[in-house]
């Protein structure tokens, strides 16, 4: 959703309860019990949420989306049939796309050695997969700097589709607000986001930012001399 328009003011509620209705409580608890024991991982659940047809997604409350995603997974995993749900008045929605199970090759490789180090300049790759991803659109193609290496984590993009864990380094990457949103953004502001190594490539270009940095160093030095 990062960067989208048209959602109006933020719905701030004073003294908001943890749950607003009993059914939200039940839905939350059902999901927690099922995710831990009967489903494979949280990534496939997130993907099921993303597969809710966009008009439904935008028109549903948070726990209604959980309900829809849960029913999608239950039917796909043959834990419950569609007919059983319909006969009890709990008709599941038709997901916008299938679970996209794919078979990979040598996907269990664990990449322990990090390709990037803190301070390295990187570009978020312009990937547009049809399945689950944790690479938001607003950073694709943008240039940033590695802030920190968090270590090795299971790759959500493949794990969501049971295509292997493909564990790899995840980095905190810093982007300048102006790189993401243009020159109208405040000069000092930044954004940090956690990105898997497969989302990144080295930024080998002579960037404007790099040049700017070296010239501003010179400027501040001469400024001090007066």
């Amino acid at each position, binding site marked *: 959703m990062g960067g989208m328009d048209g959602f109006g003011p933020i719905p701030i509620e004073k003294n908001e309860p943890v749950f607003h209705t009993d059914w939200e409580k039940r839905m939350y608890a059902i999901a927690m019990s099922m995710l831990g024991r009967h489903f494979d991982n949280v990534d496939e659940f997130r993907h099921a949420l993303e597969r809710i047809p966009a008009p439904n997604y*935008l028109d549903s409350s948070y*726990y209604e989306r959980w309900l829809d995603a849960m029913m999608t997974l239950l039917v796909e995993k043959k834990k419950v049939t569609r007919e059983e749900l319909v006969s009890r008045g709990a008709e599941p929605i038709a997901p916008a796309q299938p679970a996209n199970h794919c078979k990979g090759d040598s996907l269990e490789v664990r990449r322990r050695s990090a390709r990037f180090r803190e301070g390295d300049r990187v570009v978020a790759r312009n990937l547009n997969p049809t399945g689950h991803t944790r690479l938001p659109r607003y950073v694709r193609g943008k240039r940033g700097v590695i802030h920190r290496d968090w270590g090795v984590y299971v790759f959500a993009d493949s794990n969501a589709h049971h295509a292997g864990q493909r564990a790899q380094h995840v980095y905190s990457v810093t982007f300048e607000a102006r790189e993401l949103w243009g020159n109208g953004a405040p000069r000092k502001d930044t954004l940090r986001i956690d990105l898997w190594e497969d989302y990144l490539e080295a930024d080998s270009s002579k960037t404007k930012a790099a040049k700017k940095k070296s010239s501003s160093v010179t400027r501040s030095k001469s400024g001090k001399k007066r």
Partner: protein
Amino acid sequence: MSGNHVTIPTGAALRVKALETILEEKGLINSAALDSVVDMYETKVGPRNGARVVAKAWTDPAFRKRLLENATAAVAELGYGGPEGGHLVAVENTPKVHNLVVCTLCSCYPWPVLGLPPVWYKSFAYRSRAVRDPRGVLKEFGVEIPEKVEVRVWDSSAEQRYIVIPQRPAGTERMSEEQLAELVTRDSMVGVALVKART
């Protein structure tokens, strides 16, 4: 609770009830166990945990250092941990940097220290605008950050979960850790509020 308020079951309520019945019949869930899951986040785990963490960081420099180095281990010292808390990161507000946390992709949030997220945190409005116009979002919460201060947004897109350590307000030097914890709000630990000394 408030006497004459009657709740009419909505479509969602009926569907969830049906789903629960089916799953119970199949032995996939245990309805009684669901109650304890709800109770955990309604009464036991919430932002009071985070407030204790912040107050301790303000008063105990060694703890603050451990918290900034490895927040998961540091909050475990206070007995906090569990789902969505395995990779906790504490980020500190200073006179030069104001931190703001969002999850643009879903609703990632540090449950063990803040509990479950409020509706606004999960809303499309916050998820879409916190990254592009954080200062505008902050204004909606009544917070204005000076231009010379860097606003640093953290988009929790992977396994890390973030808690903001707000700045300790002036005039609280003589307060105890417990009194300080009373001042710390949930919103200040997400970065959409500042902590104020009570007058």
